């Protein structure tokens, strides 16, 4: 789960990280109110859940009330990578002497939380990782001890010589680690962390992602979720025990198992078609699940054919076939459907489906070819 920058700033503040003040605004009128009698430099920043705001013109400095209002007028409603800007923050701008990067991630390889710092701040860290990986310093944190004082200082010394600054930065790293652990983050990033001319270190932008598997124990984080239309569909599917992701193609697929579902999408592409979605119905023959899955699938108006790909393991294909027949009886659609059953009791399952007149096949490749053909009718 992702949150907006303003939400990350609020979490940072709660844990005592040095973050300049900001006001969240949903309209130009609210911005106008926020910058009344403006006597300092502010920055108006689009709040969207995608990166690359700056380049898209979603971040603007303003010195006067009129300039701030004009900036907000330009940014609100702007489209950034398909996301419409509905909120901005007006934040106090600070003088910057130098920018740094600080991030914590779950590191698959080290099986740890890893602290990353770099003197190359303010740019996409992935770019630095590609071009100058040696400029990023990494430290895998032992979960049994946490980030110890001397370890935090060691990392801070990679960025600063002045011991006063080292201590300031080390404190920020440790606070960020506490936030990461206590909120079940998968990413907590300060980019940039800045040094001001009067030798203060501040966090002027924040990005946080959270572990979906841990949301059950993070009610405060869950309450921050702001999902768009596609994500709402994904969340709704998850509540029904399905895993759904919308794509751009026209061939809907319904599969049991995530790996097989990915392989099914790939196969459709391999034979010249375009998958409309990823949909994993898990391991059950429950007709209600199939009904729910079909409803979600067919709510996508781009879908012109459906490929159902089931490998029967413990779930027997004849049970799956019964579930399908019951489900398709309830749904009634004109969209052509091809069913592939393989594995345990596949023959019995295919025989049952024959009565329905649905095209049935026994291999994935045949199913993909058939679905593509049906989608072109």
């Amino acid at each position, binding site marked *: 789960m992702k949150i907006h920058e303003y939400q990350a700033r609020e979490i940072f503040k709660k844990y005592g990280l040095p973050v300049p003040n900001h006001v969240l605004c949903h309209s130009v009128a609210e911005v106008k109110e926020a910058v009344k009698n403006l006597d300092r430099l502010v920055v108006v920043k689009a709040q969207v859940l995608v990166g690359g705001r700056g380049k898209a013109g979603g971040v603007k400095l303003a010195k006067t009330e009129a300039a701030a209002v004009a900036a907000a007028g330009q940014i609100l409603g702007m489209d950034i990578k398909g996301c419409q800007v509905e909120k901005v923050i007006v934040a106090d701008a600070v003088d910057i002497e130098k920018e740094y990067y600080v991030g914590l991630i779950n590191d698959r390889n080290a*099986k740890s939380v890893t602290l990353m710092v770099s003197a190359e701040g303010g740019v996409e860290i992935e770019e630095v990782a590609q071009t100058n990986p040696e400029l990023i310093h990494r430290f895998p944190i032992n979960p049994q001890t946490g980030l110890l004082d001397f370890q935090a200082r060691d990392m801070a010394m990679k960025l600063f010589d002045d011991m006063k600054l080292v201590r300031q930065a080390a404190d920020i790293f440790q606070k960020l680690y506490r936030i990461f652990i206590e909120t*079940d983050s*998968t990413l907590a990033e300060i980019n940039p962390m800045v040094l001001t001319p009067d030798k203060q270190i501040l966090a002027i932008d924040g990005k946080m992602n959270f*572990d*979906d598997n841990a949301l059950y124990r993070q009610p405060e984080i869950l309450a921050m979720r702001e999902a768009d239309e596609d994500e709402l569909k994904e969340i709704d599917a998850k509540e029904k025990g399905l895993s759904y992701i919308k794509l751009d193609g026209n061939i809907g697929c319904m599969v049991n198992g995530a790996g097989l579902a*990915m392989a099914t999408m*790939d196969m459709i592409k391999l034979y010249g078609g375009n998958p409309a979605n990823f949909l994993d119905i898990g391991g059950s023959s429950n007709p209600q699940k199939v009904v729910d899955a079909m409803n979600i699938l067919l709510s996508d108006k781009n879908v012109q054919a459906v490929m159902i790909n089931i490998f029967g393991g413990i779930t027997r294909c004849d049970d799956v076939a019964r579930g399908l027949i019951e489900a398709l009886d309830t749904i009634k659609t004109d969209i052509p459907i091809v069913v592939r059953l393989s594995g345990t009791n596949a023959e019995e399952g295919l025989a049952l489906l024959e009565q329905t007149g649905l095209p049935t096949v026994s291999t994935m490749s045949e199913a993909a070819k058939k679905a593509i053909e049906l989608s072109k009718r």
Partner: protein
Amino acid sequence: MSILVNKDTKLLVQGITGRDGQFHAARMKEYGTRVVAGTSPGKGGASVLGIPVFNTVDEAVKTTGANTSIIFVPAPFAADAILEASYAGIDLVIAISEGVPILDMIRITPVLKQNGTKLIGPNCPGLITPDEALIGILPGMIFKKGNIGLMSRSGTLTYEVVNMLTHSGMGQSTVVGIGGDPVAGLYYLELLEMYQNDPETEAIVLIGEIGGDAEEQAAAYIAKHVTKPVVAFIAGQTAPPGKRMGHAGAIISSGSGTAEEKMKAFAAAGVPVAKEPSEIPQLLAEKLAKASV
């Protein structure tokens, strides 16, 4: 031989009185796995399908000599169950539970290392040495004893491939589902080493997917250390970036973890990558024919 499990494996089922635990305990027993004990705090002294139930893993191990444990408890309690097994001296723990928080796995990793416990999963279908031991939720009837070692991040896709192998007359030594989570137990490198050293395994199939760089590491390891033929398949070539494809670990983040990079790495290591699962038996046959020349 085989790897990790065989007919001497003595299995404990943690969460044996739950719906899934009971169902799969029955199936594993039916397959011929030696299921010697179950645990369920508060239900010690009972018996499920003739299997004695204990309150604690420690008690179960001391009484029955169980050396392997499978975990069916709900995700929020999985990390605790894994550690209970580890502290009781279990050698190999298989965690089936799906949805375990990543930080729980990170917290228990150093303890497992310190206790010398091997872990498979979480969020995995388990493993099988055909005709000897089935430990997990895999459908036993599609497997056949033989010489192909297979490891995979997925469940049904594994069954799909195993079914094809079995139909092509290619039996399996041991098949391991390593699970779909980003932080998990035994992974490609450890298993590649085991397969390489297992006299019964003649060739290896690796089924990977998008997310992380474990496949790239496996490719580099194979080039250096594995002399047996290896064939790979990668799922998720059409997956959009930034979206979790069902498995918590199957995500392309900031351009890394793509199927393309992984396929390139395998190609560079001389490992053929199947375009679709049905190509795997043929690619294996070609590799094996070359190897025997």
